[in-house]
């Protein structure tokens, strides 16, 4: 679908070089990287909005490296949505259709389809500044999809939303993609967002692409220290949520069953922050629903803190301070208990 070869762009203070990417038709592709890694610039380069220093871009078998953005058929949704403030929601959505001189009937049809797809019929006559973050996001998506683009670019679409809205919109994106099947490139700095949404992930950093692969490959076999820093500091497991209501849910992953709090059921991922895990020599009664026995298989010394890998299996990475590490006399090979609350497990 989209093929990028040796793409090179110059930013104010650094260079993005030798970017090679292949995105398959209908794929949900994630570009994951820290803030300031040039992710937005990369998207704008693909859309033709940023001057390239070198390299080529093919879209659907056609080279578009020097093509004007209005002729590429690529839509973009920015983090802050960038809705036209002087136009109503309806005029925002039909902006591209009117430019294409579509017939009134065709415009109405597309509008109806989008309004239904995103559930925004009640917003049509409002002005963008009266909308909530989630509503703006939907309108921006509708506007981007209105021109039936070959490729949809999403620039940090979730990071401007508050946490309550974020998961909803995330699920919305997944559903939308399943329904519309438009090839999507989504950039984010959030690892969990990447895993939850991406068919494949490219990790970008230090001015180039570090690794491309499925989420499993990225967090199981990071190919560099850089990728590992992104992935390994968290405990992430693939598995399935089963069980009754709310608090009785159980997350089944290879080798362990974790008590979790979630309304989701089915195949998901679970993450536990290393600092949320307690280590003890013996099990102890507490309100925490998860307590497992394992052995310390490796210790990474970071100075005032240490990362311990406790293998059950699976492996849990746990954070302890130097003080408690010394006081408890922890060492490799030792048998320990790990304890964490069901609410410390994030399902996504």
């Amino acid at each position, binding site marked *: 679908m989209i093929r990028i070869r040796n793409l090179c762009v110059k930013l104010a203070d650094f260079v993005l070089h030798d970017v090679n990417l292949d995105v398959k038709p209908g794929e949900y592709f994630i570009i994951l990287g820290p803030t300031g890694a040039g992710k937005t610039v990369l998207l*704008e380069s693909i*859309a*033709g*909005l940023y001057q390239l220093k070198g390299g080529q871009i093919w879209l659907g078998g056609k080279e578009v490296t020097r093509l*004007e*953005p*209005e002729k*590429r058929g*690529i*839509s*973009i949704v*920015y983090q*802050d949505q*960038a809705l*036209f*403030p*002087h136009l109503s929601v309806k005029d925002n959505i039909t*902006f*591209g259709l009117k*430019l*294409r001189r579509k017939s009134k009937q065709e415009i109405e049809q597309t509008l109806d389809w989008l309004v239904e797809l995103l559930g925004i019929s009640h917003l049509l006559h409002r002005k963008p500044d009266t909308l909530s973050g989630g509503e703006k996001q939907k309108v921006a998506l509708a*506007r*981007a999809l*209105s*021109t039936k*683009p070959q490729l949809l670019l999403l620039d940090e679409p979730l990071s401007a939303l508050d946490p309550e809205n974020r998961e909803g919109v995330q699920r919305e994106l997944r559903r939308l993609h399943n329904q519309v099947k438009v090839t999507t490139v989504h950039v984010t700095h959030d690892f969990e967002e990447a895993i939850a949404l991406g068919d494949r992930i490219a990790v970008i950093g230090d001015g180039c692409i570090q690794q491309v692969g499925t989420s499993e490959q990225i967090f199981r076999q990071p190919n560099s220290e850089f990728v590992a820093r992104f992935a390994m500091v968290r405990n992430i497991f693939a598995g399935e949520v089963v069980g009754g209501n709310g608090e009785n849910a159980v997350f089944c992953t290879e080798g362990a069953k974790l008590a979790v709090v979630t309304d989701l059921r089915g195949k998901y991922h679970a993450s536990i922050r290393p600092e949320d895990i307690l280590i003890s020599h013996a099990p102890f009664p507490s309100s925490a629903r998860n307590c497992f026995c394992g052995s310390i298989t490796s210790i990474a010394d970071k100075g005032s803190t240490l990362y311990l890998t406790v293998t059950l299996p699976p492996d849990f990475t746990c954070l302890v301070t130097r003080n408690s590490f010394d006081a408890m006399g922890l060492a490799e090979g030792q048998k320990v208990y790990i304890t964490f609350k069901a609410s410390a497990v994030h399902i996504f």
Partner: protein
Amino acid sequence: MVKKWFATNKMTFTFILLGLVIFLFIIVPLIRMVVTSEPNTLLVTLFDAEVRQAIWLSLYAALIATGAGFVLGVPLAYLLARHEFPGKKIIEGLIDVPIVIPHTAAGIALLFVFGRNFFAGRVFHVMGIDFVDSTAGIVVAMLFVSIPFLIDSAKEGFKKVDVRLEKVARTLGASPWQTFFRVSFPLAWRSIVAGSIMMWARGISEFGAVIILAYHPMIAPTLIFERFESYGLAYSQPVAVLLILLCLFVFVVLRTLVHRGEKA
């Protein structure tokens, strides 16, 4: 909660006093001139053909200057708002030069270009346009001294338009022209109008540069000056009052229109 005015601190109180002085300095002379004028004299002056012609010429010439400034200045303002290039700061500084130089000097400078001793003046002369003692000269003088107000205001307006809006428009299929006319221009419109009003007002009030190029036909400020020189304060006052009232009226109406557009 709104603070009671007497409960404010000493600094605020001092600042209010100082502000009051300068405010009165602005407003008292104007009010005094208006209230001491005889309504009858005003009415007679209003029907004085010479006065009416002069005021009309002021408004009309300033409007043409603003129109020319709009067509030539808005594109430049957009370029300055959107692009970085070497020498940009110098260009921005030079654009504001007309504000800081004495306007009689500006008039002299204009004569050097639009007089018949320079090719530009000669080219226009062949086309039938002369700038000395003509409406064209008045327009050129007004344009020169008032264009910075429009360019600066329009530039600020364009800067406030998020570049991403233009980028989104491009991806949705808009050409650069369409993007400008459907997104950038409508969004900067209010600043451009505000700048145009300022430019027009500044054009109407211009005197120094205009009399160097064209003492005749007389614009209102020239007429006021001449009546003051020839007949004294009493004769120049009604013309001045009329011009002020008219300017205020137009200014208030335009400001209200722009303001109302803001709310709609």
